[in-house]
């Protein structure tokens, strides 16, 4: 494997958890709900996924449990913010704190255990193709899932009636309610979907990326995923771009250091954040009509009776 190929593979590994979590959050925010609890859901999923994979000996069981645990937390968030109409920002922050604490509790018995990472795909004759063989045919389940998710989300949002409904509700929940769209039901499903994606992202961390459990191993990736959604202006294809940029900037600066290119590492570490700022500036400069933010984002909806 030559260096450029290894760099691309590493960038994909770094980008995948961000991509998975951000894609889920994108759907949640397009429906008008702001769930700041990504970090907490990812941490709990990472702990649950690893714990169950160790107990059952099966990665599949681990991934399923990770997804279910994050969905359970998302369900709790949905109940508090949608059914009870609580403040979404406060509830989301609470969910992060709760999730991080819960992950420590779940993972406590599994600290210091290690297991082999999930094997990537290998197709005789395709994966060993020179150049792009490994990059296209040699990834693992999570990477392919993230690719499929982007396509599915693009189709769902822009080509299906359900996607249109979801966008309507996110833009203006009062109007959507007035024409009879199921605001709370749609939002609840979106929140659960966001939880499932965060669960996949968490499972990826503790089962593939670095196959062990340690408290705090999400290391802020949930927050980066949140900023990715804003960076991408709530568009799925730009989330992919952003995830590759964020992952790529981190990985490339590490490679630049290893190759002794003599670039200042602190500055390079800041590149993703500078890129976000620049993107935000361009977004607001290039904005001609209206805003790219979903109109009802973060506002609780209490139907009038």
């Amino acid at each position: 494997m030559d260096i450029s190929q290894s760099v691309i593979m590493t960038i994909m590994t770094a980008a995948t958890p961000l991509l998975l979590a951000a894609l889920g959050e994108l759907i949640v925010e397009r429906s008008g709900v702001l769930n700041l609890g990504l970090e907490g859901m990812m941490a709990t999923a990472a702990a649950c996924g690893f714990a169950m994979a160790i107990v059952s000996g099966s990665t599949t069981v681990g991934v399923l449990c990770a997804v279910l645990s994050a969905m359970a937390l998302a369900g709790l968030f949905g109940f508090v913010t949608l059914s009870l109409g609580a403040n979404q920002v406060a509830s989301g922050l609470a969910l992060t704190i709760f999730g991080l604490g819960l992950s420590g509790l779940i993972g406590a018995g599994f600290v210091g255990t290690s297991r082999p990472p999930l094997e990537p795909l290998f197709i005789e004759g395709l994966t060993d193709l020179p150049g792009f063989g490994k990059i296209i045919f040699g990834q693992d389940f999570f990477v392919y899932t993230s690719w499929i998710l982007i396509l599915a989300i693009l189709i769902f949002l822009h080509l299906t009636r359900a996607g249109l409904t979801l966008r309507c509700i996110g833009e203006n929940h009062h109007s959507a309610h007035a024409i009879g769209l199921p605001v709370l039901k749609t939002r609840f499903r979106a929140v659960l979907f966001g939880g499932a994606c965060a669960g996949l992202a968490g499972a990826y961390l503790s089962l593939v990326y670095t196959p062990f459990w340690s408290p705090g191993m999400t290391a802020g990736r949930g927050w980066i995923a949140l900023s990715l959604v804003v960076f991408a202006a709530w568009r799925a294809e730009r989330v992919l771009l952003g995830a590759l940029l964020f992952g790529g900037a981190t990985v490339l600066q590490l490679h630049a250091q290893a190759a002794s290119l003599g670039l200042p590492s602190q500055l390079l570490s800041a590149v993703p954040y500078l890129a976000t700022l620049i993107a935000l500036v361009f977004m607001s400069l290039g904005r001609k009509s209206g805003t790219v933010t979903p109109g009802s984002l973060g506002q609780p909806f209490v139907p009038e009776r």
Partner: protein
Amino acid sequence: MKHIFKLLSVAGLALGLATGAQAQEKLKVGFVYVGPVGDFGYSYQHNQGRLAVDKALGDKVQTTFLENVPEPDSDRAIEQLVRTGHKLIFTTSFGYMEPTLKVAAKYPNVHFEHATGFKRAANVATYSARFHEGRYVQGVIAGKLTKSNIVGYVASFPIPEVVSGINAFMLGAQSVNPAIKVKIVWANTWFDPGKEADAAKALLAQGADIITQHTDSPAPLQQAEAAGKLAFGQASDMIRFAPKTTLTSIVDNWNDYYVARVKAQLDGKWTSIDTWGGFSANMVNMAPFTNMPEDVKKLAIDTEQAIKSGKLDPFKCPVYAQDGKEVPCNGKGALSDGQVLGMNFYVKGIDDSLPK
């Protein structure tokens, strides 16, 4: 959460003792950790020290710990320990320095010990360990075992402790293999498994066949194992994460120190001192030497013994800086403790510019 329960139970116990009020009260000793005790690294090793105190002096002493205490918020946690009757309190992270001093000024009758700091008071002692001694031994092993003559170093932050570690590693490696190169990647984090793994991958892609780290997670080790290369563990024995790859780990050992200090407190002989112990004080240990041939293992053991007995100092003079100039020798035949504690230069042969 856990520490709240712990505190509540301590408070409950204190109440019980007050009402009972017959037997002599046990000495209460408190510990404040920056990470979770389950981090299998830095805080875990401090907690092992606390357990050693329990084991050695459990009939006279009662210990309490607070884990995951954020550094800016720590004065409240430390004060809480004072209010619940703790007479000796260990604060175990660099960032607790000012909060510890602040609380200590309010309670002159309580004794404090702050790890890795440099400010003392009449009731605040400091302690740290000479981790660079372990780095030198690792350097010797790496110098013998590398085939590509490139060693990858995952570093955290350019602070003196890390820089002196890199230098000691390089000097150890050069002592057996003058042609060796060390490639350094600054991860700019103490703990981010994903980023540490990526840093290790970058180093492996650049031809490193041995990885060493001054960050806290076992992720670089796992990457080395996946690539079929060799690596060193950090803070605790990490061989369980990479059984075919781990050569040895530098193990922090606070057990003897904590027992000795608690004993001093019990005997009324506690004074504010500064302790900086290494192999000889049993504060730094090497985990078993594994995955290496017998002759290298013997050389590693001999090097460790030589440092322990004082025959060898990792920074024995002459030491040459990166630009080839000799570093003034302020100690006895070696760099002084002050020079090592404030180290802000690379030694000759390191191909990296130190981030400022």
